[in-house]
């Protein structure tokens, strides 16, 4: 779920005709002062971060004058609340509250329909109030084809003991709230508190709207950077990973960091799961073996080899991890050699030194394990491949044994260097990168095995040299499935003439920053000495 900030949600509500307090979102104390000068009445200042219970955390302040607003804003901006730093605050008119209600729309998985909920009590602690006073809470399923009808909303409100003009005002808000939720594909939308003022008007005093991640593509106007729920702002590495996922629809790649910093001496594992259920099972196994997880990562749903490669490069951008553990359900329907090739390319480039345990059970696991064994014997690290008959618990134990065996060395980040591509190379673009074939090396090649290795059959021989058998446009559009088989064959069996360049925007700079940070630290330490 992609959460909207309160000020974003209120904008949508206002556009739908729901009354919201007058105000503006600001990011400097001066702006806060200006807003109050313009409004000319007492205000409330509310931090715009994704936490609940802001008042209890010191995230809500009141001010009666522009000067006071400026001071309070200075106090709030930059404050650290849970995992967030306050960058924006909403400054809006203070309402004269007579009573508070609650309205919310959720998706009911049992009924397979939206469910509108209304409570004649609202505000903080609504969950407890609802438990204690069930008679004050009512809900109604909404027919997705017809929407929430006026009379349904009125019946809903009436059932909580409200009548007369107020009933009309509130039910009007409910039908509008439903329309907003539907229009913006909201996974949930709630107004809490809904406020009745001393003047008799009904306002949305606060709101929480979360958009369905799968529908974010329909709403570019919302400007959602990462269509996923976080309980903190996404890290730089997560942003890099999300960009990879966004640009490549083949399979799933989900990456989440579980810790800010990994001390050299701690036992953290770079985790590469596959599939939700299989990943959970594998995480349990690795945690039970006394390790921590540096990250959660899921590469499943038949991802391309290039996607798994990028996932591995991102996982290996976490310094000080002690091992690389990949494991899914163990009985995957997807062809597992694609993942194996992606890992081989990444581990080889990284000259991996920390051990890896790769549980690739599923279709063609024998071939996948063979690929790992054949092509990773020259790297410093020990990497073992396992299949469906090796349990996650066994594999976690192997991880531990291998880490102990090599003395628990921490992973060191390497800079990303672009390979030298000969200017005369035969180059063509593929879906997420490009392939360069140095034909001058092909002269020495006897097998021409790259052509056979290419699963989609997009290569052919022309004058004894591999060239595209399809148009350049088709190769780029996806005829080349980026299975990496040609490159790996050529590298290990022939002349190392093929280079598949799969850029990961931002990763080079990210690693350089980490490496520079470390060398800066070293200099300081050296100076101290």
């Amino acid at each position: 779920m992609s959460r909207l900030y309160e000020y974003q949600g209120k904008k949508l509500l206002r556009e739908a005709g729901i009354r919201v307090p007058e105000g503006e979102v600001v990011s400097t104390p001066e702006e806060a002062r200006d807003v109050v000068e313009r409004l000319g009445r007492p205000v409330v200042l509310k931090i715009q971060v994704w936490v609940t219970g802001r008042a209890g955390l010191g995230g809500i302040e009141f001010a009666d004058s522009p000067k006071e607003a400026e001071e309070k804003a200075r106090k709030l901006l930059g404050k650290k609340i849970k995992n967030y730093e306050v960058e924006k605050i909403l400054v809006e008119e203070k309402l004269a509250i007579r009573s508070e209600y609650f309205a919310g729309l959720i998706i009911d998985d049992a009924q397979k329909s939206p469910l509108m909920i209304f409570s004649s009590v609202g505000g903080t602690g609504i969950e407890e109030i609802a438990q204690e006073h069930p008679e004050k809470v009512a809900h109604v399923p909404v027919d997705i084809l017809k929407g929430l009808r006026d009379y349904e909303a009125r019946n809903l409100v009436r059932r909580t003991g409200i009548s007369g003009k107020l009933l009309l005002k509130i039910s009007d808000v409910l039908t509008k709230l439903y329309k907003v939720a539907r229009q913006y594909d909201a996974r949930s939308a709630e107004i809490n508190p809904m406020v009745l003022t001393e003047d008799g008007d009904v306002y949305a005093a606060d709101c929480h709207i979360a958009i369905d991640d799968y529908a974010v593509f329909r709403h570019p106007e919302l400007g959602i950077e990462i269509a996923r729920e976080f309980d903190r702002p996404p890290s730089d590495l997560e942003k890099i990973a999300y960009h990879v996922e966004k640009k490549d629809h083949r399979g799933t790649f989900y990456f989440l960091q579980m810790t800010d910093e990994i001390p050299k001496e701690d036992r953290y594992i770079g985790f590469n799961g596959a599939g939700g259920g299989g990943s959970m099972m594998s995480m349990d196994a690795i945690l039970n073996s006394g390790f921590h997880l540096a990250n959660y990562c899921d590469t499943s749903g038949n991802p391309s080899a290039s996607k798994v490669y990028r996932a591995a490069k991102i996982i290996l951008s976490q310094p000080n991890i002690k091992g690389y553990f990949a494991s899914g359900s163990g009985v995957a329907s997807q062809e597992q050699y694609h993942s194996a090739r992606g890992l081989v390319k990444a581990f080889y480039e990284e000259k991996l030194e920390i051990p890896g345990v790769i549980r690739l059970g599923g279709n063609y696991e024998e071939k996948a394990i063979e690929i790992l064994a054949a092509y990773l014997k020259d790297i410093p690290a020990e990497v073992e491949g396992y299949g469906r008959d090796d349990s996650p618990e066994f594999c976690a134990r192997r991880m531990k044994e291998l880490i102990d065996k090599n003395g628990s060395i921490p992973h060191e980040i390497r800079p990303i260097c672009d390979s030298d591509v000969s200017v005369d190379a035969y180059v063509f673009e593929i879906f997420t990168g490009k392939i360069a074939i140095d034909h001058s090396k092909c002269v020495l090649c006897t097998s021409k095995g790259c052509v056979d290795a290419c699963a989609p059959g997009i290569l052919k021989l022309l004058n004894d040299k591999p060239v595209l058998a399809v148009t350049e446009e088709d190769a780029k559009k996806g005829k080349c499935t980026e299975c990496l088989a040609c490159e790996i064959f050529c590298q290990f069996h022939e002349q190392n003439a093929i280079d598949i360049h799969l850029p990961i925007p931002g990763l080079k700079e990210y690693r350089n920053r980490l490496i520079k940070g470390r060398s800066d630290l070293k200099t300081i330490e050296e100076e101290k000495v």
Partner: protein
Amino acid sequence: MAILVSEKSRVVVQGITGREGMVRTRLMTDYGTHVVAGVTPGKGGGEVYEIPVYDTVEEAWEKCGPIDISVIFVPAALVKNAALEAIDAGVKFLTIVPDRVPIFDVLEIARLAKDRGAVFVGPNTLGLVSPGKAVLGMIGGRAERAREWFRPGDIGVSSRSGGMTSAISYYLTEAGLGQSTIVHVGGDAVVGLSHPEVMELFEKDEQTRLVAMFGEIGTTQEERVADLIEEGKFTKPLIAYVGGKAAKSGTRFSHAGAIVEGTRGSYKSKVQRLRDVGVRVVESISEIPKVALELRGSSGR
């Protein structure tokens, strides 16, 4: 008997000319699924593995005769229309493979399905297989693998994770225990047939003597299975394995969710509820075949 699909079911594949559609049609036909037609708008008149391709489901129905099942492999954004088209044409069972289908689209599909007496598995499903009879979707990946991993028998399997669906079934096969039907109900928050609905089908199925279920945190599916058992609507022995113990608890969608559902959805709630009604909840996948053997023995059948 098995549930939902047999070798006699007449199947249409929507999106048959796409990358996944083609590969998985191969799996299905090689396994024995009776695929009678494919549909890709604009590609009518063609063929995929000698299966005729039509522009619409209605046309496929007219030319090939009644269709029991549609398996959908179209991009997520087009799923809603494909599903509505199939239901409108009269198809009563759909397998919706793609993931990332917007939730309101799923609700619309569910709404029309209810009106027309149709049901669906998915979205975000590997599909289902009645071992020895037919496979729908992509479970098993290739026919020879599906034959090796899944064997006919009397255990029903229902799972919210695709990989775990195959894994549980494979480990049962390894232990000499066959399966009646294996269903991946799909990984999304709202799915067509959820665990309790699959349990009701298994209850009526003579071939199924016990059921293994893989649950996950989130949604109320596992709790609703417990409700069914309590109401006496599901009476066969059930083994449950719930994933997500290590996951961070307490992440709620919203206050609204908590108001209606209370603490439902958490790992603890699910395990507790299931245990309370006598379900054998296991802590690791390797226990499933062991408990299955034990339950089968003690059931005396």
